[in-house]
């Protein structure tokens, strides 16, 4: 028995790789979908806030991520955009990360096409700007000074839905889909605390624990944390079999597998320590 435990403790890392891959591949291959109940999570708070927005409000969605976090944030982007469109809210998209401009365009144009929403009347993608927090402060006093054109260089004056937008106070809500810096922290600091605009957030699971502090203080109205947050929003919006919801089954299995790895590693460690082999 001790020999088996010792062998398990020295498992080649490539075997671990294969097991992790299988734990993800098998549930996807069998199209396993687990029910995703949404409890008193911060994702529900964001959904409720968006749901209460009056028709015709302007919401700024900032796509502050790149492909490295796309599997977590793109389903969020699509679910949030769908919800905003369903509520007949005007979406002004932008990006603090250059690659976010393309990914945001993909999310918005895809949803707009399926719902019959018109570019420049119901939604616009203003594109990317450098400057992070410094640029957000300038947005506070004048959005058109920072974005004289949209992503494809269409002048501000030629975009009808932007006529009533001056500074950040023109927005009923800002949602940052954030993978790091610059991202949600800058939005909370500059747009939320400085200009008093309500802030919502979709973030990677890595940054979610830190951002809970902003929820307790009311600096953020709600948060979608990682793939679970995306799955929650898909559930709340009513997307059947969305990408994030489908991801919850492999996520569950892989979590169990990693927990088993940790338990086996600890059993091997304590067994060796008992024998005096480990310090």
């Amino acid at each position, binding site marked *: 028995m001790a020999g088996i435990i010792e062998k398990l403790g020295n498992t080649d890392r*490539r075997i671990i*790789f294969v097991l*992790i*891959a299988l734990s*993800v*591949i098998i549930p*996807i*291959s069998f199209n396993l979908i687990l029910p995703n109940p949404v409890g008193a999570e911060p994702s529900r708070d964001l959904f409720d806030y968006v749901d209460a927005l009056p028709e015709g409000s302007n919401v700024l969605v900032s796509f502050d991520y790149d492909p*490295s*976090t*796309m*599997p*977590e944030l793109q389903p969020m982007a699509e679910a949030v955009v769908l919800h905003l469109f369903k509520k007949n809210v005007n979406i002004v998209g932008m990006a603090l990360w*250059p*690659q976010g*401009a393309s990914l945001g365009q993909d999310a918005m144009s895809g949803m707009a096409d399926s719902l019959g929403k018109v570019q420049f009347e119901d939604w616009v993608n203003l*594109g*990317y*700007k*450098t400057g992070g*927090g*410094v640029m957000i*402060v300038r947005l506070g006093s004048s959005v058109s000074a*920072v*974005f*004289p*054109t949209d*992503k494809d*260089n269409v*002048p501000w004056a030629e975009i009808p839905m932007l006529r009533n937008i001056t500074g950040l106070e023109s927005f009923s809500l800002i949602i940052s889909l954030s993978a790091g810096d610059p991202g949600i*922290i800058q939005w*909370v*600091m*500059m747009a*939320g*605390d*400085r200009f008093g605009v309500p802030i919502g957030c979709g973030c*990677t*699971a*890595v940054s*979610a*624990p*830190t951002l809970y*502090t902003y929820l*307790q*203080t*009311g*600096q953020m109205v709600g948060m979608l*944390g*990682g*793939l*679970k947050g995306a799955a929650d929003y898909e559930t709340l919006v009513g997307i059947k079999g969305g*990408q994030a919801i*489908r*991801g919850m089954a*492999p*996520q569950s299995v*892989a*979590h169990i597998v*990693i927990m088993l790895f940790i338990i086996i590693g600890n059993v091997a460690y304590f067994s060796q320590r008992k024998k005096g082999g480990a310090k």
Partner: protein
Amino acid sequence: MNWEILGIWLGALVTFCLYSFLYRDNPFYKFAEHLFVGMSAGYWVIYNIENVLIPNWWQKMFPAEGGFSWIWVIPGIFALFMIARIVPKIASFSRLSLGMIIGAGAGLNMVSFFQTNALAQVKGTIFSLASDSVWSVFSSLVLVIGVVSGLVYFFFSKAHTGVVGKTANVGITILMVAFGASFGYTIMARLSLLIGRCQFLLEDWLPTIPRLLGFGG
């Protein structure tokens, strides 16, 4: 040519090239890695030209209604100074641009971090004290004690002995719980990325094979 299928196959090809690293470092991985770096850099440059320099600098310097706004020459020169760093003889000019960037960033961060990450957090902790149920009172106390003891742990100007030491010990305990939560979330994040790629390979790429072979949709 079906551009959609070609795109999926290109995506799958580079995905397999990169995953080959799991076996060991190899030329396929190195090829994809170098391609990724080059294409990403190209993407950044183009977006800077199209979304920043043209609308925010060039079109402001030469407005559509005609004329020349000389004031925009100044940031242009500062941007050039930044690039000067690559030429050793004139590299010191980049300090002027760095001074501007770092100075503006420091000025903004000083007030913003103090307001958002210090004052608002202290206020949030003080006003967290609830009294509507025993459980919420207990939770509020855990929050307040956790924040205070955590701060004591980070206070290195006094030796961690006696009451300070005991409070710091409570602080470490709270921090361990927080770090554990961060670790759990980190595992979730990394797996989510893998799930995304597997969904692409199994749900987008794999169904194209029968289509290419002439059977299936």
